[in-house]
């Protein structure tokens, strides 16, 4: 009866210890943090902490976690392996053959890391305890915004100016196109004229002879009269009323009345 009681009490204690450990593991920010906490149990200045003893504490912690079937994150196990290696380095006499860092060097660096982490923790605490803006120290409550007055300066370049002028002046080039007919003779006009005159044309004569007088000189009018009269001549030739001939390329085109058979 007594024994069973004692066992039950032990079970409760073990369970509590295990639960506490779980909570603790979750509370640690990684292996370095755990090492820092463990080092405090040595109650010495971090500079004098025994890394060997610390390694043993850490390994014992990991072993305990294993016994209690607590899942440890991989980096805790990596640290455990490294500390086991460090421990062996610290316990064995240095090998003069290897130029690998000595156990003392590695231990010193670990001590430095712990001290540095501790220093940053303390610095963070000091920083957070400073009088802080919005909590202990205040800015102007009735801040006045700076009024911004905007004014504009208009700018134009010479190019803008010239393009604007060009735009205005060329706008007129796009009015609907109307043919200027003053210097234009239509085929109908030429045909009417030719029909009236061709009856008398017994002899070959240049078509230009049939142009009205005021269409003879000005090149533009003459060009138009030539084209119109030639077209009219072709029409009359088709009707069988006249004959057309041309001595050679670009020679004057001549016409005469065609007498009906």
């Amino acid at each position, binding site marked *: 009866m007594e024994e069973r009681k004692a066992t039950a009490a032990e079970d409760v204690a073990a369970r509590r210890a295990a639960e506490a450990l779980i909570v603790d593991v979750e509370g640690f920010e990684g292996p370095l943090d755990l090492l820092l906490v463990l080092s405090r149990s040595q109650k010495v200045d971090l500079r004098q902490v025994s890394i060997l003893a610390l390694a043993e504490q850490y390994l014992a912690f990991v072993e305990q976690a294993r016994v209690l079937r607590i899942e440890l994150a991989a980096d805790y196990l990596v640290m455990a392996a490294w500390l086991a290696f460090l421990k062996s380095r610290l316990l064995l006499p240095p090998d003069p053959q290897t130029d690998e860092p000595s156990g003392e060097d590695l231990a010193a660096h670990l001590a430095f890391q712990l001290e540095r982490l501790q220093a940053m923790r303390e610095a963070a605490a000091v920083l957070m305890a400073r009088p802080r803006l919005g909590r202990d120290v205040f800015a*102007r*409550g*009735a801040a006045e915004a*700076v*009024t911004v*007055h905007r004014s504009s300066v208009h700018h*134009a370049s010479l190019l803008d100016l010239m393009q*604007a*002028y060009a735009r205005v*002046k060329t706008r007129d080039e796009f009015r609907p196109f109307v043919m200027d007919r003053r210097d234009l003779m239509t085929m109908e006009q030429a045909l009417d004229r030719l029909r009236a005159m061709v009856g008398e044309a017994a002899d070959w004569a240049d078509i230009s002879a049939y142009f009205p007088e005021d269409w003879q000189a000005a090149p533009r009018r003459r060009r138009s009269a030539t084209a119109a009269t030639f077209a009219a001549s072709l029409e009359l030739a088709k009707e069988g009323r006249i004959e057309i001939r041309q001595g050679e390329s670009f020679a004057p085109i001549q016409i005469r009345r065609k007498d009906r058979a």
Partner: protein
Amino acid sequence: MTQSPAPAQFDAPPQAEIARMIEAMLFASAEPLSTAEMARRLPEGAELTAALEDLRARYEGRGVELRRVGEAWAFRTAPDLGHLLERHTVETRKLSRAATETLAIIAYHQPATRAEIEEIRGVSVSRGTIDQLIEMGWVRLGRRKMTPGRPVTFVVTEGFLDHFGLSSPRDLPGLRELRAAGLLDNRPPPGADAPEAAPQAQDSLFES
């Protein structure tokens, strides 16, 4: 201006301390603070009136003044320094199309009447447009034209020539040059032997 350490003749150092407290409260407050509100926040028995008067005197003639606002108190910028809380910015904007065209027409055809500008632009020219150009110092009134109604004319100014780097309005390139420089849209001219309308028009206007 004396510094804050409490004057020796008062056996109550609180007054200087009360002034400090009021100073901080008024500074940090978004609204003017009533004496009742200040008294509520101050240690009991604090003599407010003297401390406020002390503080007001301290700020007299400074960049910030302690002012009574109804039943309350507040720090306010000294009235003569209001301009420091203003900032003037100048934006550069492109001249509007209407203004640019009007300016171009005046430059090419000066002296130009409003009617002439309107005839060339094909639309009416608002008063504002010419006013703007005059305000900018690019256009001014020229001589009245000796035509019926004696209309006013507009010419470009020295300032205009300066701005555009011209020594005379005659330095402005003609349409033919503009076209050669690719400044005109690439449209075929209406007739091969069509006269260069623009320079002629320009000349005739300059001479009319």
